[in-house]
């Protein structure tokens, strides 16, 4: 028993519609006889049979549209007995080799994980990845300030002279810990260089911040949380404004000389969850209104902790503030972050006895310290600088 199937007449023919049977059951057919007319997208085509015999049964009604390979009629060889066919279209398809089985997959270089948001060339990224260098800590010298290969190479030669990565620290926070060690090494290198090269002098001043704290609480009371400011923002603003009068604390010392910076980019030391420290800059902090400064501070803190910050934010700081926050200790003797020339420390503000007009009263006090580079400035100027900050904090509405 032969099965006559919807023939394939072209590679683009997927189905045909039976228009007419040219043979009926009982008709004898021979090879090459036309058996049916099939409508295709190219028009009606008469189709031929390749098997001689007698048409036993027409399996398809006129008007039916069926895929190529579908049984259309059964043809009985002379003398044979009719059997119902299996009308499967797939039966006549044969196995063909497929290219996918044997073709090799295209070879591509496996990329190192990206450091998001940092403009660095692929070469710089690869080198940084291989040498465990935090791109965020590398100043860029390429097109549009991008970090290029030589920048990372130089950073590597400086033993990671800038501070270390959050991204790497976060990925390695649990488990191997190697990136944390990398950051520790970077901090070690920077601080060792500072202690080795910079002749620090240290000054301290206990500052009554009651007025400032009260003013801040009052200001925050009727504001939505996202519009509230923290004490650190006031402090940054006060430092920034003071620097305008004391430019010798704002800039960098390199190649044996101090270069004062016209811009005031305040570095803010931010502790990372899981350990480590990073001090990115708030650009032009002195000229930002307090609300703006607060937005920038919060944004920067959040981005740093999420590992998303720009290299320029790290490289550009001209002075740094390290604030011990609300649950820290009274004071800090900070270490200057090279090539900067000064760092201001702020202890945790606490309520302590304080003599006002000869009477001991409870006041909120904060110990401000200054570490500065003796190659650039002297203690006298440093004291005036700290006093200027103190004075501004007594008049917070002006900030």
């Amino acid at each position, binding site marked *: 028993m032969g099965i006559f*199937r919807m*023939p*394939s*007449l*072209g*590679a*683009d*023919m997927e189905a045909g519609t039976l228009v007419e049977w040219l043979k009926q059951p009982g008709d004898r057919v021979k*090879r*090459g006889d036309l058996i049916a007319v099939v409508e*295709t997208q*190219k*028009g*009606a*085509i008469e*189709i*031929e049979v*390749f098997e001689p015999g007698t048409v036993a049964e027409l399996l398809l009604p006129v008007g039916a549209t069926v895929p*190529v*390979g579908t049984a259309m009629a059964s043809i009985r060889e002379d003398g044979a007995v009719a059997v119902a066919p299996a009308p499967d279209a797939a039966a*006549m*398809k*044969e196995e*063909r*080799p497929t*290219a996918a*089985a*044997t*073709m090799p997959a295209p070879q591509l270089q496996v990329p190192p994980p990206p450091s998001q948001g940092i403009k660095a060339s692929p070469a710089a990224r690869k080198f940084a990845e291989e040498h465990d260098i935090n791109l965020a800590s590398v100043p860029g010298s390429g097109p549009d300030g991008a970090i290029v290969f030589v920048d990372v190479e130089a950073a590597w030669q400086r033993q990671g002279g800038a501070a270390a990565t959050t991204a790497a620290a976060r990925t390695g926070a649990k488990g191997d810990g190697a990136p944390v060690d990398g950051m520790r090494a970077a901090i070690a290198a920077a601080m060792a260089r500072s202690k080795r090269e910079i002749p620090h002098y240290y000054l301290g001043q206990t500052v009554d911040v009651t007025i400032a704290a009260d003013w801040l609480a009052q200001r925050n009371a009727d504001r939505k949380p996202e519009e509230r400011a923290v004490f650190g923002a006031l402090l940054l603003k006060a430092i920034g404004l003071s620097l305008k009068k004391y430019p010798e604390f704002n800039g960098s010392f390199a190649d044996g000389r101090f270069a004062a910076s016209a811009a005031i980019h305040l570095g803010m030391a931010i502790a990372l969850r899981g350990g480590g420290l990073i001090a990115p800059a708030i650009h032009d902090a002195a000229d930002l209104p307090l609300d703006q400064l607060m937005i920038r501070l919060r944004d920067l803190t959040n981005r740093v902790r999420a590992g998303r910050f720009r290299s320029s934010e790290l490289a550009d700081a001209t002075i740094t503030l390290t604030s011990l926050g609300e649950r820290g200790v009274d004071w800090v003797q900070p270490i200057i972050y090279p090539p900067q020339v000064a760092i201001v420390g702020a202890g945790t503000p606490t309520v302590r006895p304080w003599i006002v007009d000869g009477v001991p009263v409870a006041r909120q006090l904060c110990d401000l310290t200054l570490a500065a580079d003796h190659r650039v400035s002297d203690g006298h100027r440093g004291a005036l600088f700290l006093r200027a900050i103190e004075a501004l904090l007594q008049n917070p509405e002006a900030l």
Partner: protein
Amino acid sequence: MSETSDPKVHLTRSHVRALYQEMLRIRRFEEKCAELYTQEKIRGFLHLYIGEEAIAVGVMQALQPLDAVVATYREHGHALARGIEMGRVMAEMLGRQDGCSRGHGGSMHIFDAATRFYGGNAIVGGGLPLAVGLALADRMQGRPQVTVCFFGEGAVAEGEFHESMNLAALWQLPVLFVCENNLYAMGTALAISESETDIHRKAESYRMPAAAVDGMDVVAVETAARRAVEAIRGGAGPVFLECRTYRFRAHSMFDAQLYRSKDEIEAWKAKCPIEHLRAWALQAGSLHAEDLTAVEADVLAELDAAVAFAEASPWEPVERLLADVMTPEAPS
């Protein structure tokens, strides 16, 4: 061409039988191809030569082994008539490794170095300059060989046809141009595509000897081809034969033939070159009924073996995908 010279066709019993068998080989081979196509074993375009067999068979009788053949995408008949093994041609149809082109070409690109069969060219008109160049090479190297170039009447509308006519005539190259005028370029009738429908007159305008031949009569084709090849080999320059014929089947498998009438097709089928030769041979006593039966049996046996060979042939390994793009051993 003069009709008076003596044709060098010797219609012995064996020769008539050979002509008949060659045509029948092509016919049965292509009928099988159509069947295999509907079963999706042959894919791509399949252009059948059925109805035109007398031309390839007739012309090939005139060739020597070292002569060259350039054909078109409707070239199964030429390949078989030229002597390429049927199994290798069928394997090529199926895209198998034992195909004469390792399966790389398929139905439209049959090539065979042993018989100097240069395709299998599926750009209409594209084979003509090739034939001119092959003939130029023979001429420049002093070889007494002829290149036969087959093409359809559709090709004569192409610039490459005219450029080739001119070059061949200008340089007096040993080319036999055989135009298989089957009246339709795909679905476009000659009368609506050419200002001059007597194709051979185009060749005459290039000062090339040209004639029209009954392409349904294998003896007529062989006679004309023998005379032409003899003249060409004698240094007469190119000759042009327009063989008037008809394809009985659609242009390719997927063709509803909207452009021509059934009556026209039936009228031409009545001139079937195989039937024509059979009737003549029986009447003339050149062949007997038992000869015909024996030929049919021979052909079917050859065809069965060819299909079996082709289907048993392996696929070209994908590792060889790029193997024949460039010659592997470039000089260094």
